[in-house]
């Protein structure tokens, strides 16, 4: 049973990000993995090795696309070439849903290649929701938007980040990719209680969860994806699963990437929280 209307893929289980250092191991050993998340932009190419690898992965595994450059929050209109290539890839992978970030990153056709935080205003929420609807209508696939980690806040903001996220997804009628690590990072950088965030997003719209590691600096925390998941994030994950039900979960590990087994084992730790939910659910008593 899906845990909620936007979470039709409860059985997807625990995925990991498909990363270059693991290609050889995955293609040769064919390890058992529930699913792989691919970075869409790495495969929106015309040919060569990336597509060959993708072909081989698709023969064996379920793949979900995760993007880093749609920029729903940019004031710019969409880059039509980007969307065209993305749609081609969506058809090719048959991704059951598509995620990208609730952020901006391009201005007047110039790209920062970063995931920049939004000003949390009602006008921006309307604009962003409209772009999400436009993308979904064109791409013909359900969309989940991911909360980003941030290091800056704007004077013009009129609401909290979780209120903004809720406003956008309700107006866009889309799902949420809830990045628990990002909530933790932002909560430390902006002095809010991460459980306020978790408790106040529309749980019925959470279609996927991200977990990851981060790095602490003297005055702020950076979302580096180069460590195992830290305890506070695991605790938040357990809470998120209680609120949202079993949800497709992915571990991100993008820098200083260890062996495939180490990454996969770290991801599978999420199972203990998911199993606890199943064991304690009313239907199992």
């Amino acid at each position, binding site marked *: 049973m899906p845990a909620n209307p936007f979470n039709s893929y409860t059985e997807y289980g625990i995925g990991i990000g498909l*990363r270059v250092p693991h290609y050889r191991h995955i293609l040769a050993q064919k390890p058992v993995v529930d699913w792989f998340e691919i970075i869409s932009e790495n495969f929106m190419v015309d040919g*060569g*090795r*990336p597509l060959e690898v993708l072909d081989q992965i698709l023969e064996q595994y379920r793949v979900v696309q995760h993007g*880093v450059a749609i920029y729903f929050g940019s004031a710019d209109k969409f880059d039509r070439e980007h969307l065209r290539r993305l749609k081609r890839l969506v058809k090719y992978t048959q991704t059951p849903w598509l995620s990208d970030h609730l952020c901006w990153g391009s*201005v007047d056709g110039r790209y*920062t290649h970063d995931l920049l935080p939004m000003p949390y205003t009602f006008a921006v929420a309307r604009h962003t929701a409209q772009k999400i609807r436009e993308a979904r209508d064109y791409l013909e696939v359900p969309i989940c938007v991911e909360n980003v980690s941030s*290091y*800056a806040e704007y004077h013009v903001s009129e609401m909290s980040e979780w209120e903004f996220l809720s406003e956008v997804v309700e107006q866009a009628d889309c799902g949420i990719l809830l990045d628990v690590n990002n909530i933790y990072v932002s909560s430390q950088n902006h002095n809010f209680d991460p459980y306020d965030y978790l408790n106040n997003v529309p749980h019925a719209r959470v279609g996927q969860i991200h977990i990851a590691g981060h790095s602490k600096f003297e005055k702020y925390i950076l979302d580096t994806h180069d460590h195992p998941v830290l305890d506070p994030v695991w605790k938040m994950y357990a809470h998120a699963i209680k609120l949202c039900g079993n949800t497709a979960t992915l571990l991100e590990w993008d820098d200083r990437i260890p062996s495939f087994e180490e990454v996969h084992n770290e991801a599978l730790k999420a199972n203990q929280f998911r199993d606890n939910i199943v064991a304690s659910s009313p239907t199992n008593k």
Partner: protein
Amino acid sequence: MQRAMASALFRPLTVDWNMQGQWNDGRPMEQFAAEFIKPNDRLSSFDRLEIYNRQYWFRILDCLYDDYPGLLAVVGEEQFLKLATTYLTKYQSDSYTLRNLGDRLEKFLREEPQWTEPNQALALDMVRFEWAQVVAFDGPSKPVVTPDDLIDTPPEQMRLGLQPYLSILKLDYPVDDFLIAVKKDADSLRGEASNAINSAPTSKGESSQIPLPKPDVTYLAVHRFDNMLYFKRLEPEGYIILEALIAGSTLENACVKAVEQSTRPNADWQALIKEWFDNWAALGWFCRR
């Protein structure tokens, strides 16, 4: 607000990897940042904007370091950093993918030769060669022509296309041998863009130890086979044939042009050209125009 913030991110860092202290109009940067970014109990508006300014430059410089190790070896790390910073300031990324970050680097080096003096010709050869590798890695391909496709076409009418991922280059320097010496690792997909970068880019090679090559005209094809990247030396006449085919010549005219321009008086052209075409066809270079 997005324009203001992006303009701030696009401004180069100082030599100490910090955000510049003054905005374009001379105001203190702290004042500019405070207009739209809130401070908190640990970080000023300046500090918070600086985190993004650093991440922007660390990410895009790191990308150029990865894609252009040969150019870095030619000009040296200190000059490469200046060159890359100036290039990325003049030509900000206009693509959603970092793959295309270097697509105007050759143009830039021609416009501003001071960055590569006294090795401008070598640097230009290298940047053309390295961009050709980007194209060969994931550029488009077309269906390969088969003998059946050509059987009814006489040579004087036959026009062949070359695969879009294939680049043929006439170079003043043997940059292929030089790059092999410089480059430790073959390329791969770009690093993931979703995570933060917290350190300045550095050279991955031992390039400073390797002597620069001496001039020696070199003809190269940069291509892929079984989705692996290769570069292959060409004979001068082979280069002329391929260049002519790309320009739209018939097969016959391309071969005639190569023989006429050759400085080799006693070559067995029929055998040579057959050998080249057999090889190029086996590599899948020919497609319909």
